């Protein structure tokens, strides 16, 4: 067992062990639960980062064991360049969400369960990206859903949390089933469940390629919450407790992108994917514009940011649909940057809600003087989501737009660019309405815990740093492209 294999194990073992400890020693860990969860999340992130030198050396850390030999089921984990950006995003978001939860979540007797489920949710996401075989992939994929669903059902806001959790479960599970069918068809046709083997190239009948790709695209689009299969997202994001919302929006949505990159794009050739390019681009543009319009129409600050995710996933789908270097690199960059910015915006929304007790935008206003730091952080987040330089998302949008203009469909590319103006509109409207103007009558401002402020400020700084120094993340993504597109 090499050092890399140990780090690989730690990424999953840390949250698993911590959640087990939290469940088993629930009565004694009411106050220490947050710290234990934070420590395990930090270990996961550390483990992921520790694998970076091996990847730069050209190694692919693998950990595998036979599980059901008769059915040829193996449990294999691996980290390659396609996995890495997603892994870092998920583990990083989990860490900041857990730290944010220290201030957000009031400890009670169920707190250990809360953190245990949060860690299982993170485990599901990390496992999904680390899995190198279909069986393990699907197990982690469903674990992610179950853990997040339980978090919404138990710790969600309002009376409707049960219904919302059910809706979330049904919707995303339908997507999961499509993915499962796709996986089974692929397994049946190729006889292999190993991603590494499948990536070497498979020969399928054209009809089967169309079927499998369609199943994957629709299935993963549900997870991405692209219009019109996004309906679970606004409710789930709004009702979920803020740390869970952060993980849902900033990390879990990226799983859909990962799925599209890992399956149809990695397995099939560009020629085989070509018929899907325009539909993907159109779906991306529609989702981008529709999500932005809905964000403009909404009045609940969490729902505004939630619809913004629908819009941002549209950019990503558009980038993937270009099927070229710039577009796909931009889409993957967008996943990483969107995670940072979306987590930041939700954290800011959480701070405003905590400070004022209000979440309707028409009941807020003039908070700039009372909450200057939150105003600056939200301003940075809003400018970043609007694609303004020098903040991170500008870089990924540049790549996505460049990818669009490398295709023959200039009209769609111009439409995407024009649609980005709607993003500017809702982002400015969001900040302007909350932090400027007169403060509404009766609006009081309470104090904010440091545990909620610290990660918010950290992400604000990260948004700026990622913007002015994009090279590291860009390099990861460039390595990934060789895996996906065979070096186009």
């Amino acid at each position: 067992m090499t050092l890399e294999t140990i780090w690989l194990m730690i990424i999953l073992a840390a949250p698993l062990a911590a959640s087990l400890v939290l469940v088993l020693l629930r009565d004694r860990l009411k106050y220490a639960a947050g710290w234990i969860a934070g420590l395990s999340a930090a270990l996961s992130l550390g483990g992921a980062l520790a694998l970076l030198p091996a990847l730069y050396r050209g190694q692919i850390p693998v950990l595998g064991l036979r599980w059901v030999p008769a059915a040829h089921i193996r449990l294999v984990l691996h980290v390659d360049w396609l996995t890495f950006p997603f892994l870092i995003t998920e583990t990083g978001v989990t860490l900041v969400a857990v730290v944010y939860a220290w201030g957000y979540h009031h400890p009670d007797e169920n707190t250990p369960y809360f953190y245990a489920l949060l860690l299982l949710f993170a485990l599901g996401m990390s496992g999904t990206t680390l899995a190198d075989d279909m069986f393990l992939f699907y197990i982690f994929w469903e674990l992610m859903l179950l853990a997040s669903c339980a978090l919404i059902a138990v710790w969600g806001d309002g009376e409707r949390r049960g219904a919302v959790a059910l809706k979330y479960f049904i919707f995303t599970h339908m997507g999961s089933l499509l993915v499962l069918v796709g996986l089974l068809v692929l397994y049946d046709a190729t006889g292999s469940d190993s991603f590494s083997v499948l990536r070497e190239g498979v020969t399928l009948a054209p009809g089967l390629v169309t079927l499998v790709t369609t199943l994957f695209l629709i299935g993963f689009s549900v997870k991405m919450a692209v219009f019109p299969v996004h309906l679970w997202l606004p409710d789930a994001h709004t009702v979920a407790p803020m740390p869970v919302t952060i993980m849902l929006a900033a990390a879990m949505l990226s799983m859909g992108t990962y799925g599209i990159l890992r399956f149809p794009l990695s397995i099939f050739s560009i020629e085989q994917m070509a018929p899907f390019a325009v539909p993907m681009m159109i779906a991306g543009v529609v989702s981008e514009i529709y999500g932005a319009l809905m964000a403009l129409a909404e009045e609940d600050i969490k729902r505004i940011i939630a619809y913004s995710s629908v819009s941002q996933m549209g950019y990503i789908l558009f980038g993937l649909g270009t099927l070229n270097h710039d577009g796909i690199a931009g889409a993957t960059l967008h996943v990483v940057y969107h995670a940072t910015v979306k987590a930041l915006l939700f954290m800011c929304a959480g701070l405003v809600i905590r400070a004022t007790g209000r979440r309707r935008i028409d009941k807020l206003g003039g908070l700039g003087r009372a909450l200057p730091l939150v105003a600056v952080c939200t301003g940075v987040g809003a400018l970043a989501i609007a694609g303004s330089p020098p903040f991170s998302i500008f870089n990924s949008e540049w790549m996505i737009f460049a990818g669009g203009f490398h295709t023959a469909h200039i009209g769609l590319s111009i439409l995407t660019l024009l649609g980005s103006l709607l993003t500017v509109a809702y982002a400015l409207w969001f900040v302007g309405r909350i932090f400027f103007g007169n403060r509404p009558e009766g609006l009081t401002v309470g104090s904010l815990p440091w545990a909620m402020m610290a990660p918010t400020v950290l992400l604000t700084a990260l948004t700026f740093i990622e913007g002015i120094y994009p090279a590291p993340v860009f390099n990861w993504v460039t390595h990934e492209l060789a895996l996906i597109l065979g070096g186009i």
Partner: protein
Amino acid sequence: MAKILVLSTIGVPLLASLSLAVASRRTRPSMAHHVTLAVSGLVTLLALALLPFAGGGAVIAVEWFPGMGQIGLTTSSTGLYAVLVTAGAAFFALLATASHTQEFSPLMGALISLALATAAAAFLADHFLARYVVLEIVALCIALAILVEMQTRQGVRLAGGNYLLLRLGDVGMLTGILLLMDATGTLHIAPSLEQGLTLIEGTPLGARLRWAVAGFLLAVWVKLGGWPFHLWKRTGLQLPLNAQIWLYATVMPNLGIYLLYRVTPLVAMAGPMRDVILWVGSGGAALAALAALRHRGVRVSLIYQETAQAGLLLFVAAAGVKEAIWLSLFVMAALRMLLFLAADATRHATPPSRQRKIGTGLLTLGGIMLVAFNLLIVWWAGRTGVRADALFVAQAAVALTGVLSVHMVRQSLEDEEERRPRQTYEIQWPQGVTMGLLGLGIVGGGMVFGPLTHHLMTIASVAPPTMPTLPALLRYMVTTPAILFVVGVTLIARKMWQWTIQSPTPATESSEEIYNLEEGLVRAARALRAVVEVGMLEGLVALFALGTVEGARFVYRVVEQEGLEGLLRRAVQGVMELARRLRRWHTGRLRYNLLWIAISLILALLVLVMYGG
């Protein structure tokens, strides 16, 4: 040495901006003003010091964005002169207002310094990505300036509107950049434009590159505040004089002119699109000048004057007169400064005041020089053989800008009675000195216009244009039908107006009739404004905003709630109903009637026996 100077040109204002922003609460307004003034002066000096190094390649190059090539700052001659003009304008704007610093916010100083640093970087950058990034930051500074002054909902609305409009221009610019990059494979400005020029005609990429030209021109049109994008410039009236003159009337238009200067060769090769651009430019100029005649405020009229100027520049660019665009960077910067300062002097000077008369005199001087310059550039455009109809409209627009100048001078004299006491104050020496310097500079520049133009063309490596003599220019003016037509109509209208007002014993009926005619003209002008400005433009904006929000709500209700949610709800209801019926059937028949089970088992047994047998 050049590297240090270039770094300082950008770094010094950047540092000042950061310092002022961080220490904004502890910095006195006068101190902030002095710092900003000193910084703009220093950048002007640094640009001057860089001139001996002009024409060199990239002095600083970094790979910021992997795969996009080395992003460099160069000491190109045109870029350095553009920095010099822009920084000098900032210095003069701040110097002129040095006597009333109490209204200068430290945050405004930070924004001006940041815009100065980024504008300098934009002029010196040899890479489209870098230029786009810094232009976006300048746009942000312009929008934020409103928020510094007005932290109300109204301020947010104006700032947001400005930023959206400027971003629309940036959408155009990004379209242009990315299409050009796709065609040429590089983001370096000079090679990319050169290759674009060879590809735009006779290659399959030509059509795509024409889209790129359209994108660039949209960016230029928005930055220059061409009609109908002048709305963002009007909001500058809410700012202190120095911020308005520099941030709203100088820096962004200069960036627009410089961009237009770079893409003019592409514009001239844009095929059928060129005719559209000619018409948009000349028509936009005429419309803006006509709309300006309706306004009473000199500062508002000046904004429309700039809008008309934007149209003329676009027209001249479509005609392919690159040298006129380059020249206008210098001429317009000086004239804008003079006109705005003079207008402010006439607006605020305590009556009766000698300074007020000087202000009016300088306003007249600025107006004359502007008209002369416009005449010259349209004369140049005419010599390239542009479409006669578009040229006619452009010439009419030049005449209208002349009428507008007269209108402004008259307004500055007539407004005295309407001025409220609190709006007046003694014009202090800094403003007087600045206006004097600018006036002298403009007169001097006018006297040596030929050699000066020759020098500036040498800098830009452009062949000097044919320079008409003053009599030839005057002859052109008095023999151009469009100009004569506009002047004639204006004189008739003016005469009728005077006759109506001054006639000692006007026949009531006749007077009424003529008055009605005058009133009709005024009403027509107002109707034009109401239809075009308020009805169409502002109405369109309001309708668009309303339509967007209401449309979004409608779509939300129909698609989201009733459509998709409804579909889902109905599907769930259907499944639930089916489940309920099945349950009823199950509990009604099977639970209480085990016969069904027995029959099923017997049937199964029979099947097994039959097949097994």
